[in-house]
């Protein structure tokens, strides 16, 4: 909510014009005076407008409806900085998702909320790089373009996608490239994801490969560039919020979808509806929401989010925290193997005398599959093999179960370690430090207290 605008714009400018600019443009707050459009008046006006009124303090008095020109509520001490997690409040989303940032809106799913075989829509994490665009009035008229190094430029509406191409449904992991970033030491720059920047839902759409076939990809195409309708955070209409791409080989993978439904329902706006891209196994940032264009290029794409240190890892391992050398970086491609315990939850208290604990979890491994999951209750001294289900389809996650026996009451940590189909295991620590913290996949641990 907007709030705590101190005083009228006239008063402000009379007293200190520079500071007034700061207040008017930046909504500066103060402890003592909270008159101008504070409290209920502002809430009412926001409701009437259907959203925040970011520059409410700029409005000359004459434009403010008289009914809203309320007297000042009593002065209050400023709210203390919020402690503990901030939970998401968003229509259609679980209020147990943890907000990492409001602007852009980013929220992760704590591991124990990923206990469903198929992640329900309300529990799927939220990642935005830009502003949330306006909702499409007529979704079936949403248009995507495939152009560049193709024989036939394609312009297709959602209606045409549905009617002209074969729809398929797949259960696919969508994972933020920065998942696990919070485990790096020293801290890496960006949203501090734990393991909750991932989910595995049922996505319905058409194969991107079918569209590319219709467009006729030229031999000169080596890379793609993807665009969505979300405006840049700065409001600069000429700048995409993010535009990344993949090498042509990955682009042609038959598992990539142009999606319009999530868990059997029209793709919600907050997840990129009416149409988004889904390129599973790689950082989620290549799977643009509100998809408008796929540009086939004759060179590596250079949109915002490509190059330098974005979604990139060091080629020659660097000293953690050192100044990075741009020439020593390559794109993060496949996401690494990750296994999480989805039950019990971290912090669970078990009745005194509990000996056998049943565990549930999920594991996935980017372009690879999960060969094995092991769990430990003694910090890795001994391990128990979990039972791992096969994937429903490629790029599905794999659910696993295990049973462990505890020797006594007390404090235990349960650790899980996934091994991918190439034999690569999760490490104890987030290694191969890079400045923006990609590839962090240390073993997941939950603490339980028995008795």
């Amino acid at each position: 909510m907007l709030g705590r605008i101190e005083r009228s714009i006239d008063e402000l400018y009379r007293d200190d014009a520079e500071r007034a600019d700061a207040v008017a443009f930046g909504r500066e707050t103060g402890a003592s005076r909270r008159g101008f459009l504070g409290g209920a008046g502002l809430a009412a006006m926001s409701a009437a407008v259907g959203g925040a009124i970011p520059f409410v303090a700029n409005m000359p008095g004459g434009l403010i409806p008289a009914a809203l020109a309320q007297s000042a509520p009593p002065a209050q001490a400023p709210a203390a900085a919020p402690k503990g997690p901030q939970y998401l409040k968003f229509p259609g989303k679980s209020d147990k998702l943890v907000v990492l940032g409001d602007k852009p809106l980013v929220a992760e799913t704590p591991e124990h909320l990923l206990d469903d075989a198929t992640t329900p829509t309300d529990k799927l994490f939220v990642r935005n790089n830009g502003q949330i665009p306006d909702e499409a009035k007529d979704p079936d008229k949403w248009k995507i373009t495939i152009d560049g190094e193709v024989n036939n430029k394609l312009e297709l509406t959602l209606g045409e996608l549905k009617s002209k191409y074969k729809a398929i449904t797949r259960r696919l992991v969508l994972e933020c490239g920065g998942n696990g970033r919070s485990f790096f030491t020293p801290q890496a720059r960006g949203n501090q994801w734990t393991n909750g920047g991932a989910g595995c839902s049922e996505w319905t759409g058409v194969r991107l490969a079918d569209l590319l076939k219709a467009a006729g990809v030229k031999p000169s195409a080596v890379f793609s560039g993807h665009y969505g309708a979300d405006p840049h955070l700065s409001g600069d209409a000429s700048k995409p919020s993010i535009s990344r791409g993949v090498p042509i080989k990955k682009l042609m993978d038959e598992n990539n979808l142009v999606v319009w439904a999530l868990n059997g329902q029209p793709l919600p706006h907050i997840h990129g509806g009416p149409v988004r891209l889904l390129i599973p196994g790689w950082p989620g940032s290549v799977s643009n929401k509100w998809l408008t264009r796929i540009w086939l290029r004759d060179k590596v794409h250079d949109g915002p989010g490509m190059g330098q240190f974005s979604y990139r890892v060091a080629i020659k391992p660097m000293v953690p925290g050192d100044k990075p050398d741009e020439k020593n970086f390559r794109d993060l491609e496949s996401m690494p193997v990750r296994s999480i315990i989805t039950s019990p939850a971290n912090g669970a208290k078990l009745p005194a005398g509990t000996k056998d604990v049943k565990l549930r979890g999920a594991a996935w491994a980017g372009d690879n599959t999960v060969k094995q999951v092991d769990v430990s209750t003694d910090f890795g001294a001994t391990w128990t093999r979990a039972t791992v289900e096969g994937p429903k389809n490629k790029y599905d996650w794999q659910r696993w179960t295990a049973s462990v026996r505890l020797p006594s009451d007390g404090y235990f940590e349960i650790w899980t370690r996934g091994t991918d189909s190439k034999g690569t295991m999760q490490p104890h620590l987030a290694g191969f430090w890079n400045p923006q913290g990609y590839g962090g996949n240390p073993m997941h641990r939950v603490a339980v207290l028995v008795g």
Partner: protein
Amino acid sequence: MRYLQKFAAVRFARRLVVFGILTIGLALSAGPASAQQFTPRDESPEDYPAGAGRDDAFYACTACHGFKLVAQQGQNRRQWDDTINWMAEKHNMPKLEGKDRETVLNYLEATYPPRAPGGWQNPFLNR
């Protein structure tokens, strides 16, 4: 506070748009909540630790994104310096130079230095 004024032109254009929305909005009754009406939680400098340069840092960063994103980070001065360059080069931040830059860097360095990672916490520690 010259720095803040550099945003003025962009902000003015944006507030004109807001005026338009406001005018239309007041003519209609409030509709049902929908995604596009999501309101980011309001922030103010007072939500963050006091220190010289706090307001400058707050307004320099929140022209585009929430300060909560900044407050999640823990970096040394060189890393904060690199981050400001990155924001200017890649993310449309107006260049921040001279005294303004020093002021912002001083606050960020003092308030958000490298710290122990926050990834996993013992849930029973502060029972």
